[in-house]
């Protein structure tokens, strides 16, 4: 197996604060991996470095063997590095169909087409249907996004990322804040992601992490503490001390 996403000695400092220190990390093709760490461990900064929202202070990011460190966020998305957001960052007054059509259209390079109607290109409309069906959004396509039940909004969040045809999908707390009744749908949707999409789950919820991940990376104080299989991570005394122990108290 080869690494689809890699970082080499990636570091980011804000003034004197080292938010990410010397992270060398890799995600195998088809991976189901989780990134965990206590609050303030630098998970958000790390994701921002991967997606290109923040420039690193030093180090490099590779996608499918290609150095993407200097690429802008949208260029990384077009190469298949896509993320979802922990707090809903959807377009409140657009409908799911508009949002999905935007994502699919941008991927197919139609985003600059001002002369024809959105959806006039048939393959695009068909793909919107497929994505909507996969994530159970077919019956809410024409509603305003901010009027959808929260669980549907979270599904749309993942669906939109999926519509960008990711090689690597970064899922940032996909089920956070979702009522128990709707939670199942989200877990099912994540479990049903195609095997060729490599997934990195950034998560607080240990149940979700241990049910989903085949491999876990633990980030503490901006650096990788340990990586390994779930059973090894659960048994690791250092992890228990800094992370599981802490959440046990909290």
């Amino acid at each position, binding site marked *: 197996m080869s690494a689809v996403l890699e970082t080499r000695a990636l570091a980011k400092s804000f003034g004197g604060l080292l938010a990410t220190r010397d992270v060398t990390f890799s995600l195998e093709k088809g991976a189901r991996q989780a990134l965990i760490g206590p609050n303030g461990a630098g998970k958000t900064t790390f994701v921002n470095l991967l*997606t290109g*929202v923040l420039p690193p202070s030093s180090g490099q990011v590779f996608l499918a063997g290609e150095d993407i460190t200097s690429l*802008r*966020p*949208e260029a990384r*998305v*077009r190469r298949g590095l*896509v*993320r979802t*957001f922990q707090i809903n*960052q*959807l*377009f*409140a*007054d*657009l409908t799911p*169909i*508009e*949002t*999905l*059509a*935007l*994502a699919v*259209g*941008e*991927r197919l390079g*139609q*985003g*600059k*087409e*001002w*002369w*024809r*109607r*959105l*959806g*006039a290109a*048939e393959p695009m*409309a*068909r793909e*919107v*249907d497929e994505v*909507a069906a996969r994530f159970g959004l*077919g019956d809410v*396509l*024409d509603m305003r996004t901010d009027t959808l039940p929260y669980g549907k909004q979270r599904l749309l969040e993942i669906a*939109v990322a999926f519509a*960008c045809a990711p090689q690597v999908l970064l899922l940032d707390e996909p089920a956070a804040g979702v009522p128990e009744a709707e939670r199942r749908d989200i877990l099912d949707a994540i479990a049903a992601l195609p095997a060729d999409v490599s997934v990195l789950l950034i998560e607080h919820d240990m149940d979700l992490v241990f049910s989903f991940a085949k491999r876990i990376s633990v980030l503490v104080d901006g650096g990788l503490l340990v990586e390994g299989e779930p059973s090894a991570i659960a048994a690791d005394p250092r992890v228990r001390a800094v992370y599981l122990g802490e959440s046990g108290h909290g």
Partner: protein
Amino acid sequence: MKAADSLARRARWRWPEIVFWLLALAAIAAPAGKHLILNEIAILALFALSLDLILGYAGIISLGHAAFFGFGAYAAGLICKYATADPVLGLLLAMLLSAMLGLLTSLLVLRGSDLTRLMVTLGMALVLHEIANALPQWTGGADGLQGMAVGPLLGRFDFDLFGRTAYGYSIVTLFVLFVLARRIVKSPFGVSLMAIRRNSLRASALGVPVNRRLIAVYALGAAYAGAAGALLAQTTAYVSLDVLEFNRSADVLLTLIIGGTGWLYGGIVGAFVFKVLQDLLSSGAPQFWLFWLGLFLVVLALVGRDRLHGLVRRAMP
């Protein structure tokens, strides 16, 4: 193909829209008397539409949009005097020049917060105003640009004193540019603008090249504003410095807010309300018209602009 149907429905013309445009175009043939004010309304509506493209759709706030209006007006005036008297050709050239100015200045509004953009756009309009003031040999300075001999429209229709040709020219221009704008905002490009306005970080996380889209729409908005300015210059055969004044930027912002942003008819509704109010209120006591306008705005805000707009928008989305 649920998505295809739904997306097609989204762009369909509704009958209230068709009725509206038929009435607006039919008014060309109406008895003489109101064409001058109708012409003013059509020009203000086009100007407000241009602001809606950049503010309502792309979220770029501007307090200096008169820069492009005034630039288009002077461009049309100078083209008429020194290049061609044909109004349509002059209009197209003025739009092209305004778009180029928009393209250049878009680099200044890409970065920064709303407050930065307010100041940058305001500053640009002030700079252009002073340039126009400082070049009287070209612009006529404070006396205004005179001596425009605008040729007949399409070589057939002379501009008359009652403004019938003027209104016909302006309303057809508005209609054509409106249809184009409608096409654009319903296109993939248009949806990407709407996404950028809501959340530009999220838009870029979907692969939208945010800056390039903003540059394109800013140039488009500039071309539309330039067209409005050119119409004013050609239909009045005169350009004065007030085309670049701050008041004009503020008025067009008010107009658009009255009518509703992010909705193509907002500029038209706003222009109608603004001009009719101005006409009615200032016929009694001209110096007090701003008092009444202010009162109207306060009441409008309190009554709930969104509720009023909601009613209309359902009919003409």
